[in-house]
C-alpha cells in the first residue's frame, strides 16, 4: 500500500468462528481511508463474514466468537469499552437485499437520525434532500416522499438504503453485494454512486462480480476458504497477481 494513504480499518490476526466451525483464519490487512476496497472470492469464502465483523453485525448471531483485533481508527472495535451502537453509527451498512422499512421514503431516511437526538423539521428536510440527492434519487422521488418506500423499484430501494445509511453521516460504508439483486441499469447507477461517495467515505464492498470489483475499486482482497489470499491494488490483482489461486480465480479457472 502506498505510504501517503491513511489506514482506516486494520485487521490483525483476525479469526472468526461460527460455533466450532472456523470461518476466518488469521486475516491481516489494512484498508485505506477514502478509497473503495473490494473483497472477491467464491461463495462461503468468508468475505461477507469479514465485512460484517467490522461493524460487529455478527454479534447478533448466536454462538459466534472472534479472536484477534479489528482496528478502526486505532481502536479495537471488540474492546470491552467500545459501545457497539456508537460504532454502528460511524459505520454505515448496505445489504445484499434492499430492505427499506415499511414506512414512507421520508421516514426511511430519518430513521437513523431521530433515534438518539431530536432535530427540527427543517433540519430533517434538509438532510433528507441532501441524502437523496447524493444517492441520485431526489429527482425520482421528490414528489412522493410520503409514499411508502415499498412502492419503489428494486434499484430505487437499494439507493434508498444507501441514502438511509449516509443520512447519519458515517465515516465508513460497508456494502455487502449491493448489486446482486439489481438489473444492469440499476447496477450502473449504484456503481456511479460508489464512485462519487468515495471522496467522502471509506467504502468496503463485497461482490461476486469481478468486473464490478475491477470497475469501482481501488484495492481488492481475494478470499478463499476463510483466508485472505492476496490484497493489493485492484490493477495489480487483475493484471499481475502474485498468487496462483488469485490468478486461477480471476481467469475463471474455478469459483
Amino acid at each position: 500500500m502506498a505510504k501517503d494513504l491513511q489506514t482506516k480499518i486494520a485487521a490483525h490476526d483476525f479469526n472468526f468462528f461460527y460455533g466450532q466451525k472456523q470461518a476466518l483464519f488469521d486475516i491481516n490487512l489494512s484498508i485505506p481511508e477514502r478509497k473503495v476496497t473490494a473483497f472477491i472470492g467464491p461463495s462461503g469464502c468468508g468475505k461477507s463474514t469479514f465485512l460484517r465483523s467490522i461493524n460487529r453485525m455478527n454479534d447478533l448471531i448466536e454462538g459466534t466468537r472472534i479472536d484477534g483485533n479489528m482496528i478502526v481508527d486505532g481502536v479495537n472495535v471488540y474492546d470491552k469499552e467500545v459501545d457497539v451502537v456508537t460504532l454502528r453509527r460511524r459505520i454505515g451498512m448496505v445489504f445484499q437485499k434492499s430492505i427499506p422499512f415499511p414506512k414512507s421514503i421520508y421516514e426511511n431516511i430519518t430513521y437513523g437520525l431521530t433515534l438518539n437526538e431530536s432535530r427540527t423539521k427543517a433540519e430533517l428536510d434538509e438532510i433528507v434532500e441532501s441524502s437523496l440527492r447524493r444517492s441520485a434519487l431526489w429527482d425520482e422521488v421528490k414528489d412522493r416522499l410520503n409514499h411508502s418506500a415499498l412502492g419503489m423499484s428494486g434499484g430505487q430501494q437499494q439507493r434508498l438504503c444507501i441514502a438511509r445509511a449516509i443520512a447519519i453521516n458515517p465515516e465508513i460504508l460497508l456494502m455487502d453485494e449491493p448489486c446482486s439483486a439489481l438489473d444492469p441499469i440499476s447496477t450502473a447507477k449504484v456503481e456511479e454512486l460508489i464512485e462519487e461517495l468515495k471522496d467522502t467515505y471509506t467504502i468496503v464492498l463485497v461482490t461476486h462480480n469481478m468486473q464490478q470489483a475491477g470497475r469501482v475499486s481501488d484495492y481488492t482482497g481475494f478470499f478463499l476458504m476463510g483466508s485472505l489470499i492476496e490484497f493489493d491494488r485492484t490493477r495489480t490483482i487483475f493484471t499481475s497477481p502474485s498468487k496462483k489461486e488469485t490468478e486461477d480465480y480471476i481467469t475463471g479457472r474455478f469459483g
Partner: protein
Amino acid sequence: MQFSASTLPLPKRLLGFFAVLIALTAAVAVVGIILGMVGNFLANGGTHVTWEFLTEFPRNSNTEGGIWPALAGTTLLVMLMTLLGVPVGTATAIYLTEFAKQDSWFARSVRFAVNTLAGVPSIVFGLFGVGFFIQFMGGNIDAAFGTSSFGDGSLLWSSATLAVLTLPVVIVSVEEALRAVPRDLREASLALGATRMQTIIKVVLPNSVTGILTGSILAVGRGAGEVAAILFVGVTYSSEVLPSAVTEKFMHLGYHLFVLSTQSPDVEKTLPLQFATTLVLLGLTFLLNLTAILIRSRLRKR
C-alpha cells in the same frame, strides 16, 4: 412425449381417487357439523334472540327475561382479561424471541412452562385462582389496606385467572408474529445505530401488530367461552345489577347456560332461553373471530 394421466396404472389412479374422496368427505363433514349445529340453535332459539332478550335482566329465577347482565359480564370479563394478559404475554414473547439465548436453561424453562400451561385443564386454573389470587393476593391486599372486597371472588380475579389461562395462546401467537419479522429488517435497523430496544419498538412491534392483535383476539375467543376456570373465582348465577366495580361478582353467558340447563326450577321452560343464550355466545365468538380476520386483512393490505 406425452404426459397424459392414463399412463399411470389403474390401481394407482384408483388410490389417488380414493385419497381425494376421503379428504373431501372429511372436509364436507366438518362444514356439515358446524352448519348443523348452528342450524339447530337457530331453529330452536333464533326467534328468542330479540332486542329485549339482549337488554333485559333475567326474571323469575332465570326462567324468563333476558341475558343482559351475562352478556355485559362476559364482555367486561374478556376486556379486563385482555388488559391484564396481553401485555404480560407480549412481554414474555419479546423476551423469548429477542433477548433470550435460544438454548439457555432459562429460555427452555420458560418455553416448557408455556407449553405445560397450555395443557393444564381449565378447572385447575380455577383452583389456582382461588388459592393464588383470592386467598393469597386478595387476602394480603385486604390485610394490608384494611379493605374487605379483595379476598373474595370477583370480576378482577376471574379476569386475572383467565389471563393466566390464555397466556400460552398470546405468547405463542405473538412469538410467531415476532419471528415472522425478517431478520434483515432488524439488521438494517441495528446497522443504523439503533439499540435492540429501539429496533423492537420502532421496527419489530409495528411489523407484528397483526400477530399481536390476532393473538389477543384468539385469547379473547378462548376466554369468552371458558366456564370451568371461573366457577370459583367470581361468577354468580343471578344478579340484579351490573357490577359497578372490578371487585364485584358478575354473570357470564357460559355459566348462565349451565345454570339454565341444570339449576333451574323448570328446565323444560328454559329450553328456548338456553338455545338463544347459546346462539348469543356463539355469535359473540364468531364476531370476535371476524374482527380478527378483518383487522388482519386490513393491516396486511397496508
